[in-house]
């Protein structure tokens, strides 16, 4: 199907949506579901169905993450000619009240005058609803309203997440109605593969999986390889504890990832691609699978994509739980059905990857940024962020904060802005102590660096890394040596065992931490610990081992007194 026909589908869907006077969006992402969004959704649907109203009075739509997970279940109502209203902590009870406010059961029962011919004038209905809403707000429903002006929302710049929470993830038409696949059409119709690589390079997009390699450069390397077969792999093996950005994007806007993947395939000349998704993400797997099926049906995937002579097909591979598979060579082995162990690079996957063919491996978030860059232009994207780190970054904000959830911020925002404005500060009378970025591969940033900007270079300088985007805030109730031990425990478990520094070193580090925590440490142990950490960092084969000591090193650097306090006085 060519793009003009697809656009028509989108327009039709848009027209269908505009018929509704009220559209009630219920978040059904994992966080809200575990807060009870399932019952909320049923209550909304039953409420609307029970109304004595005409067909286009209200529609209940399931969407993805609206961001403020700590206030789930979230419901947003978009009434015609009114600003959208967001409700938090929506229990089934509250859901019924919301429905009653927007879609009154039977206006004539509520003291509205009928016209001579027995009908209610539209003006009266509008007026009636407005008064109901006012009354409802007084009744306490307004306490559930989350103002959209709070810094949690106003400080964010949504590019990758621009449609999550707005679009129905199971509907290709809805994605089209939001301008979806326009980027792909533009690429196929007007640009050569070389131009696409250049555009991405100019935008300054860097790998969002953690290492920050310029995406355009990576694509160009694969594009220049001469090979009859090339592959694209979407890395959706998000293993960091405390990080769920990729899952959210795959679950809530699967077509965006798919569009980015197809654009990438066109740019590098690949004819086949794989989504590598963690087995722990069944909903993401289901939604991506459905997106692939729908795209195939509309000829966006398969032979002659959108009626051009470019062909590309995609499939899913399910990961079985191994953190090391986030490393690209390990991931390739896993897709090939082997133990997911990394190998020495070079050769890099761009020359010899999946089944020895040139392969691009990009993180979910990286590819999800691509459609927006093509639609908005490289200059627009490069205008966001800092000099060396451009664009936006999605973070999973968690830990001891008032507002936790998924946020997308421009690069270069300061840590303080995230903690105190977006996160709303630490609850209770506790104090902010440190921010942990990059999961088990990252480090802790203490409160003295609240003014430090969040970008690739600054974080590396502080001894942490950007990582895939987990951002865990700890308050002064958390002991840092114990926190570091937690991450080391993770690394011991996840070390694949191939190289000695990582396999043996991580266990040794953990033993030393255990000894310290048990109060049996000696003065010189800290020095040993530091030396061992540096050794593991310098000599490990892959990123897992090289970054495993980061949590220990960074806490030793900033919270050394806590380690020293564990050593008993002679």
């Amino acid at each position, binding site marked *: 199907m060519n793009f003009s026909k697809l656009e028509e589908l989108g327009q039709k869907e848009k027209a269908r949506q505009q018929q509704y006077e009220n559209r009630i969006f219920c978040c059904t992402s994992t*966080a809200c579901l*575990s807060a009870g969004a399932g019952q909320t959704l049923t209550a909304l649907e039953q409420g609307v169905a029970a109304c004595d109203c005409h067909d286009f009075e209200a529609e209940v739509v399931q969407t993805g993450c609206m961001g403020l997970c700590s206030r789930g279940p979230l419901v947003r109502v978009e009434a015609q000619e009114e600003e959208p209203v967001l409700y938090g902590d929506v229990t089934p009870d509250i859901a019924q009240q919301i429905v009653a406010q927007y879609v009154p059961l039977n206006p004539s029962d509520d003291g509205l005058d009928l016209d001579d011919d027995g009908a209610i004038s539209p003006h009266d209905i509008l007026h009636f609803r407005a008064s109901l809403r006012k009354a409802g707000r007084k009744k306490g429903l307004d306490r559930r309203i989350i103002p959209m002006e709070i810094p949690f929302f106003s400080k964010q710049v949504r590019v990758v997440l621009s449609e999550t929470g707005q679009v129905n993830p199971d509907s290709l038409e809805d994605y089209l109605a939001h301008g979806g696949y326009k980027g792909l059409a533009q690429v196929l119709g007007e640009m050569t593969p070389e131009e696409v690589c250049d555009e991405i390079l100019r935008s300054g997009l860097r790998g969002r999986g953690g290492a920050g390699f310029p995406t355009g450069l990576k694509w160009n390397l694969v594009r220049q390889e001469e090979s009859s077969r090339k592959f694209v792999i979407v890395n959706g093996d998000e293993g960091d504890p405390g*990080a769920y950005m990729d899952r959210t994007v795959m679950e809530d806007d699967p077509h965006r990832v798919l569009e980015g993947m197809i654009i990438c395939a066109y740019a590098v000349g690949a004819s086949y691609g794989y989504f590598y998704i963690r087995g*722990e993400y069944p909903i993401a797997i289901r939604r991506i699978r459905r997106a692939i099926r729908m795209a195939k049906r509309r000829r966006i995937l398969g032979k002659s994509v959108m009626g051009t002579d470019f062909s590309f097909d995609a499939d899913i*591979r399910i990961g079985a739980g191994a*953190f090391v598979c986030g490393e690209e060579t390990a991931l390739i082995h*896993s897709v090939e*059905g082997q133990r*997911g162990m990394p190998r020495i690079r070079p050769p890099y996957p761009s020359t010899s990857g999946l089944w020895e063919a040139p392969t691009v491996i990009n993180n979910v978030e990286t590819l999800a940024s691509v459609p927006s860059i093509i639609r908005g232009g490289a200059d627009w994207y490069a205008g966001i962020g800092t000099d060396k780190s451009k664009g936006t970054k999605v973070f999973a904000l*968690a830990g001891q904060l008032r507002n936790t959830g998924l946020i997308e911020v421009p690069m270069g925002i300061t840590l303080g802005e995230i903690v105190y404005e977006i996160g709303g500060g630490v609850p209770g009378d506790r104090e902010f102590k440190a921010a942990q970025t990059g999961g088990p591969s990252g480090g802790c940033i203490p409160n003295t660096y609240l003014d430090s900007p969040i970008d690739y270079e600054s974080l590396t300088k502080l001894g942490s890394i950007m990582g895939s985007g987990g951002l865990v805030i700890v308050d002064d109730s958390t002991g840092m040596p114990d926190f570091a031990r937690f991450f080391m425990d993770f690394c011991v478990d996840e070390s694949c065992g191939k190289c000695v520094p990582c396999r043996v070193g991580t266990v040794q580090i953990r033993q030393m931490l255990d000894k310290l925590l048990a109060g049996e440490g000696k003065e010189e142990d800290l020095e040993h610990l530091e030396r061992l950490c540096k050794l593991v960092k310098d000599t490990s084969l892959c990123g897992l081992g090289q970054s495993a000591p980061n949590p220990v090193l960074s806490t030793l650097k900033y919270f050394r007194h806590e380690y020293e306090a564990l050593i008993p006085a002679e």
Partner: protein
Amino acid sequence: MPPEQSTKKKAEEHPSGDDRYLAIDRTMKLFAHESDALLEVLNTAQEAFGYLSEDLLIYVSRHLKVPLSRVYGVATFYHMFTFSPLGEHNCIICAGTACHVKGSDQISQALAEEFGIGTGETTPDGLFSLTMARCLGTCGLAPVVVFDGEVSGRATPEAVVKRALAIVTLAKERALLEAEAV
């Protein structure tokens, strides 16, 4: 002709008559019995049986023509594969960073004390098992536990132990009733 079809289908079935093997066969067929399919086949097997028994590993090894040592090597490498059956009821405790910071340790400790089992173990009567997940990605609601597939957030040790006891007591009563009925 229906009768013929049924005999043909029978021939493909596993000698044990267990139709869960059909799911595994289907996946293997989808990948034309290529050895690359190993991980996908093991995923299917884990899903169908709940754990990978020795018989299953041998079955997969034979049909994909992959050495048993490699099948075992791959299966033991990944965390999602288990080699012994889970209890009738299962409680997963998230041990992700956010949950750790908010005290998931105390929850697993409380459960371990109550039931006398560690994480990854099952009570001797096979009714209850305790497992740990690295991160469930619901960090906004930390600490998170999952009872039989149902996620609940902002858990406390007391509430979780109470819930677990209720589940196990119910299961015991049901088992008793069934025994009486027999």
